[in-house]
């Protein structure tokens, strides 16, 4: 692999981590969705580049799914749902932005330390990709735990899933990647349909998950 190819792959995977960081400090739902669309777009580019570098045409399908489904359809659908449900646009963070960013940096450092150490045998591209992918996964988890809003938790989950797709495409020659990304898309579609069909707002009065805690899982 030429160093240019490696550099571009590196750049794209790094951008994905950066986009995850951008999601961490968004405090409006629409803005969060836009950053998520960017996140998915970067993923599509990254996967397409891997498809080109690895001469693996089936990965173009995954890239296409990422572009059409995740970067366009899902954000648009969520936009409409948010508008129709009339959810107020402020996102309540459990902890402050500064602290969240610090935690994010800590998680990325952790991902680097763990992954680079254990993959010393693998080739450079796979190593870096895996380290970035784990960072994206951990940042996705962080987004999920620092948000109280159900929609932004879903967005956090979707960014986590983008990290998994990055890892799967980075693992050279991994079979079933397309199938797995399709399975994940089905899962996400279910979540989004679920938000709409279950009419979380109507049922729960608010999409703020904290309001759900009234029901502590125990009938009194």
């Amino acid at each position, binding site marked *: 692999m030429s160093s240019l190819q490696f550099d571009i792959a590196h750049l794209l995977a790094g951008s994905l981590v950066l986009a995850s960081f951008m999601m961490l400090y968004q405090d409006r739902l629409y803005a969060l969705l836009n950053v998520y669309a960017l996140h998915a777009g970067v993923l599509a580019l990254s996967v397409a580049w891997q498809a080109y570098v690895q001469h693996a045409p089936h990965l173009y399908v995954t890239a296409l799914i990422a572009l059409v489904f995740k970067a366009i359809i899902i954000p648009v659908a969520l936009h409409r749902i948010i508008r129709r449900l009339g959810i107020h646009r402020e996102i309540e963070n459990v902890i402050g932005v500064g602290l969240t960013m610090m935690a994010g940096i800590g998680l990325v450092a952790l991902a680097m330390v763990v992954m680079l150490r254990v*993959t010393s045998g693998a080739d450079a591209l796979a190593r870096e990709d895996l380290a970035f992918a784990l960072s994206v996964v951990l940042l996705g988890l962080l987004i999920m735990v620092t948000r109280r809003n159900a929609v932004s938790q879903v967005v956090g989950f979707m960014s986590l*899933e983008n990290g998994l797709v990055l890892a799967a495409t980075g693992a050279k020659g*991994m079979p079933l990647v397309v*199938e*797995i990304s399709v399975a994940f898309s089905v*899962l996400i579609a279910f979540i989004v349909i679920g938000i709409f069909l279950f009419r979380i707002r109507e049922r729960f009065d608010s999409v703020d998950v904290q309001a*759900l805690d009234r029901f502590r899982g125990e009938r009194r």
Partner: protein
Amino acid sequence: MTIDALEAILLIPAFSAALLAILPGYPLTAKLNVVAALATFLTSLLLFVIEPTSGQYLLLDDLNKVFIVLTTFVGFTASVFSASYIHHEIEIGRLTPAFLRFYHAMYQVLMFAMNLALIANNIGLMWVAVEMATLTTVLMVGIYRTHEALEAAWKYFILGSVGIALALFGTILVYMAARPVVGEGMDGMVWTVLVKHAAQFDPALLNVAFVFLLLGYGTKVGLAPLHAWLPDAHAEGPTPISAVLSGLLLNVALYALLRFKLMLAVNPAAITPGPLMVTMGLISVIFAALMLYRRRDIKRMFAYSSIEHMGIIVFAFGMGGPLANFAGLLHMTMHSLTKSAIFFAVGHIAQVKSTQKIADIGGLTVTNPALGWSLMLGVIAIVGLPPLGIFMSEFLVVSSTFARAPWLTVILVLGIIIALGGLFLRIGPVMFGEPKGNTAPAEASYVPMFTHLGLVLMAGIYLPPVLVNSFQNVAKLLG
């Protein structure tokens, strides 16, 4: 012939799911659901006469035979119970025929997904199957569309999704570890190939992979502290689904974990998964046992009891060795049978009394003797009193591990005793207290309940040598 029976246990549920999704008539679909589940169960029995095989996607060996037969059997009895359960739900208008169509189709999809997870020889395929099973159960938990049901489904959804996401990361890492040795492509995900070559895999990568897999599939097993979805999902969904969740789905996730444990065992330089599993198992047992004391909802209480028993099973498998594995396997079977019987009884009781609150149910042995005494028998079995099957399996777990790790076993026994106290304390008034609530006789289907309890009783007194042999083979395989 060989592949036929193996494929049939996938094709029957898949075909029935499609059929049930199309057919509108309600009483017919409930019967068809039972017939399909019975056909799957009978086909699974054929697996015992055919030779073990392994292909790129499917695998049949002694380990999954036991799981498949158990899954299809409980799937069948739960479908019988389900038919009478939903009859009542339709009458009181909690479910409409449209939802029922969806429910039956999902039931078969769930059976398909669980069977697929059990016979998959491909770790990617196994992951997809577990994901599919999660999705279908999420939809079924939320089927009543009440505030509580939707919240339970949502919680299950989010936690389950995170769990399976972590499991996928672990799966990818396993592939990464395998790639330098077995080469690129499909072989790197075929379990039989992986096990053959696991000794040469990079141990560091395998270790990290296992941690992710343990967290991921462990969430689905319901191990503390990853169990938060489990009580809600059990309490708010339709009771047949609670029975299937507790009796089967937890086992399927455990099965996935065992497959990876086997793979790690081949590599001498990798961590031994045992201590991790033992620790999580013990935490689950103690935690769930303590939680039993403050339960107000009867289904939720038995959900915590499931966490406790999964803890015991994981503890046994974590300790390893032929005897502890045998005990773990027996305990898993006994728990599946007993817990689903309990849920069958609880389902009818909650319908008769139209409540799940423990405080509002009383004097069952007087008002509904058959249901009350079956539940009592189930509780006596589940807390591990002789002469029922769980006593025997718990005794085996304790006796096979005591010599090796006396202190750990003492903690385990303590947990079991705490759980016994909690369950009896809560169930006492329900059984023998002042009669409360509706005292109308129940229209219940007793056959599934009595069959399960009968089997558990029989296993406590006499284990057929065929069963012992096959369990011993599996225990040896598990190392």
